[in-house]
């Protein structure tokens, strides 16, 4: 039975320490400036304004890393960037004082353009040039080019961003909800110029995070730590929901240009891809975002020649970054939209073109290791067609559209299916990104204690890990516990993204349990076994160039079908039903897996139907109009697992909806509209315009 976890601390909002002060952030009112001088009216007794100069005077660093300021002082890089703090005993008064503070700036024109950019805006670049691309384009029967765009979205996570810093005896303790405690510890130690062992991070309840808490909590934690050092008291920073919405990282927006060459049947001969991800002011995970997007765009369809340029581009808006599947959502949506486009040009069904080009055993893209096994896409595809009645519905919606092209009388519906995968690793060269460790102890009372920082994860994940340990050691779940995930005692871990790290941790837990089982009746208790992953990076050729990204490491496979209807009055697209077929290895708890997938499907649908955030506009209006999908609008959801009994390994599955649902939703939309809008999300007025276009 799933009960609330007691292994992590409660929510940050509910934590309080004696003598604790509150801090509110003073934010820049301009998007770009070369200097900033903070001023404020005299503060009431007990209140203090902390400016960047005060931080520097304490010997702390104002930069987290190159280009990432903890407090903007010399360079303002986005509107709303922190330029100081007001600290005091009453949070509401701190908020008022922070809002009334003013600053004088040496303002410059912000660079908001990102689709055409200058070299100084490039944060990361990745390039692939493989095979005879130009020759293939010269010889091919069909050459198609299109550009696909997607918007910025909020994560709608549980608690707003925040942190408490408290000096506890000889260490500074940081309390915050983070997906990556090790990163917080490293950041605070670097910013304060102290040893990492002098910082202990005690993660608070994470709730649902959707990859919104990967690295930004480290910045807030550093600010709280500096304030605590200056004030000599515990300091809590807790953003308001509106502040969180307006100024914390969101899903990055992207523009993907795809030029394809194919033969007359639709078999791909060459791809020329230009992928641009706007990361806003900065993002320390830009490399990971780009590489995950590249893996997604190049991983699923075989193509003998490929040229790809991928960029993470900076601009003077709030930092933008990961959501759900890191960068894969954008990329899958683009490549799937392009395959639909090809199908339309060739007069074929999208599913036919996709199956024709799908990667298969022995095939390999741009020199990456050849696929050593058959991807189960055909099986997934057949099952999905059966579940969703795809063929009949697709044909009948096509027929309706032919009879009534303007959709004036008939029902405006579409259905589409998409295949995709979630890989089980990170591609970043950042230290600690791929380092996961677990220490498991069977004590004298036959309690099994699993020690890993990954225990910050959801109760569903912990239930899955418990079940694996239970099966390996044949001990009752009640005897299995997780050690608190604080950085002093727990084994270090890379970021616990939505479910990417989950399968790695599961394998490590299984490995330690099997080792304990071998020793169990030979050695005296307690038995302690520790294991960890090896750091991995993309393979390189002798000249040091990446040899392609091994995209299918510990992958989970899935297919999604989405059926939608367009409201003929408002133009809003409404999902009618969603079906998913998943091959994620062993399913430890079917109920929890179903529940986790259903809730991720709803979040993924929100990306397709919700409002996209425009940081250049900012403002309260956008905040008030932003919300996820209404529960009453949630469509019927059917999910089936295949081949879960053929393996003992469990893989992550939480990202699968973010990877496949937006692409399937978009494809269904193009069928319903009979047009290719080439962007997500798409709203009523634009849809009505497309419907009414001749």
């Amino acid at each position, binding site marked *: *039975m*799933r*009960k*609330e976890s007691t292994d992590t601390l*409660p*929510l940050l*909002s*509910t934590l309080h320490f004696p003598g604790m002060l509150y801090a509110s952030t003073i934010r820049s009112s301009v998007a770009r400036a070369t200097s900033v001088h903070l001023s404020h009216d005299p503060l009431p007794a007990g209140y203090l304004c902390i400016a960047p100069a005060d931080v520097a005077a304490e010997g702390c660093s104002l930069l987290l890393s190159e280009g990432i300021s903890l407090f903007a002082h010399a360079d303002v890089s986005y509107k709303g960037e922190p330029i100081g703090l007001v600290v005091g005993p009453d949070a*509401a008064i701190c908020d008022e004082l922070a809002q009334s503070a003013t600053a004088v700036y040496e303002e410059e024109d912000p660079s908001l353009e990102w689709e055409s950019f200058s070299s100084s805006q490039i944060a990361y670049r990745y390039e692939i040039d493989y095979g005879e691309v130009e020759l293939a384009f010269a010889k091919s029967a069909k050459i198609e080019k299109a550009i696909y765009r997607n918007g910025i979205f909020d994560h*709608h996570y*549980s*608690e*707003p961003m925040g942190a408490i810093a408290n000096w506890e005896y000889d260490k500074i303790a940081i309390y915050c909800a983070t997906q990556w405690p090790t990163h917080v510890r490293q950041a605070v130690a670097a910013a304060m110029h102290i040893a990492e062992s002098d910082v202990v991070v005690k993660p608070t*309840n994470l*709730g*649902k995070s*959707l990859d919104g808490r990967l690295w930004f909590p480290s910045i807030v934690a550093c600010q709280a730590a500096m304030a605590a050092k200056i004030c000599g008291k515990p300091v809590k920073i807790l953003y*308001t*929901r*509106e502040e969180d919405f307006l100024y914390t990282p969101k899903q990055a927006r992207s523009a993907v240009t795809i030029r394809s060459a194919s033969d007359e049947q639709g078999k791909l001969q060459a791809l020329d891809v230009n992928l641009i991800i706007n990361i806003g002011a900065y993002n320390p995970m830009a490399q990971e975002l780009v590489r995950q997007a590249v893996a997604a765009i190049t991983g699923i369809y075989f193509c003998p020649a490929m040229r790809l340029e991928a960029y993470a581009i900076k601009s003077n808006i709030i930092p933008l970054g990961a959501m759900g599947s890191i960068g894969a959502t954008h990329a899958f949506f683009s490549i799937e939209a392009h395959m639909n486009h090809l199908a339309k040009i060739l007069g074929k069904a999208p599913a036919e073109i996709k199956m024709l080009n799908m990667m298969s055993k022995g095939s390999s893209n741009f020199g990456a290791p050849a696929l050593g096994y058959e991807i189960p896409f055909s099986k997934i595809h057949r099952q999905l067609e059966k579940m969703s009645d795809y063929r009949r519905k697709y044909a009948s919606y096509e027929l309706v559209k032919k009879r009534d092209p303007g959709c004036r009388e008939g029902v405006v519906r579409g259905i589409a299916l998409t295949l995709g995968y979630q890989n089980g690793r990170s591609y970043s060269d950042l230290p600690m990104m791929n380092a996961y460790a677990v220490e498991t102890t069977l004590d004298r009372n036959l309690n099994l204690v699993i020690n890993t920082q990954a225990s910050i994860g959801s*109760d569903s994940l912990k239930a899955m890990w418990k079940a694996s340990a239970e099966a390996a050691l044949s001990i009752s779940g009640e005897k299995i516990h997780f050690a608190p995930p604080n950085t002093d005692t727990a084994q270090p871990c890379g970021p616990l993204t939505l479910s990417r790290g989950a399968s790695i941790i599961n394998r490590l837990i299984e490995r330690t349990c099997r080792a304990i089982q071998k020793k169990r009746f030979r050695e005296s208790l307690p038995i302690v076994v520790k294991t960890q992953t090896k750091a991995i990076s993309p393979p390189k050729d002798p000249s040091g160039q990446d040899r392609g990204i091994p995209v299918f490491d510990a992958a989970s496979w899935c297919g999604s079908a989405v059926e939608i209807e367009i409201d003929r009055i408002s133009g809003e697209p409404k999902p009618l039903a969603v079906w998913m077929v998943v091959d994620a290895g062993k399913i430890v708890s079917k*109920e*929890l897996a*179903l*529940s*986790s997938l*259903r*809730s991720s499907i*709803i*979040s993924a649908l*929100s990306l397709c139907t919700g409002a996209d955030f425009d940081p250049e506009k900012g403002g309260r209006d956008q*905040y*008030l109009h932003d*919300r*996820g999908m*209404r*529960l*009453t609008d*949630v469509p019927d*959801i059917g999910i089936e697992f295949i081949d879960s009994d053929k393996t003992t390994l469990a893989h992550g599955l939480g990202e699968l909806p973010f990877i496949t649902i937006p692409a399937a939703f978009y494809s269904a939309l193009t069928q319903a509209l009979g047009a290719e809008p080439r962007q997500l999300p798409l709203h009523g007025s634009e849809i009505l315009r497309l419907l009414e276009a001749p």
Partner: protein
Amino acid sequence: MIIDVTVNGEPKRLQARSGDRLVDVLRKDLTLSSLFSDCLSGRCGRCFIFLDGRLVHSCLIPAFKAKGSAIVTFEGLRESPEVREIISALEKAQAMPCSFCKTGKIMAITELLGRKPLPGEEEILEQLDMVSCPCTDPVSLVAAVGIAAELRNKRKFNRADK
């Protein structure tokens, strides 16, 4: 200003400024940790209270408006059989919400079952839509409310478990 109210059955005297929201005053003066001052726009449901028997967003109520009212928060209901049944039902259906929205969802279910002993799926979803948090899937939540309704009705009509 001073505001006299009854909170969870006890008379209380609250100290508030003219623009203060009721949620902030309740949190600050009475340290009621079940209440969150979150969206401040009546969408998230994390500040639900019963004000004179009506479920309201306390972030939308100016503190002075509560003068003379009877307020019931989650703390006042936590030990009631109704709430215990709801918690047990959420556990049974594996639909326990995250710590951030749990009390809001329980308050919303309490109100619904008080008004409608056997709610339909649409009514349940309408009600729970007042607490916007993506942590729990709606299928499990609907199942949980069904179980809670059954437990409540069995207790009310003195029906033993079969």
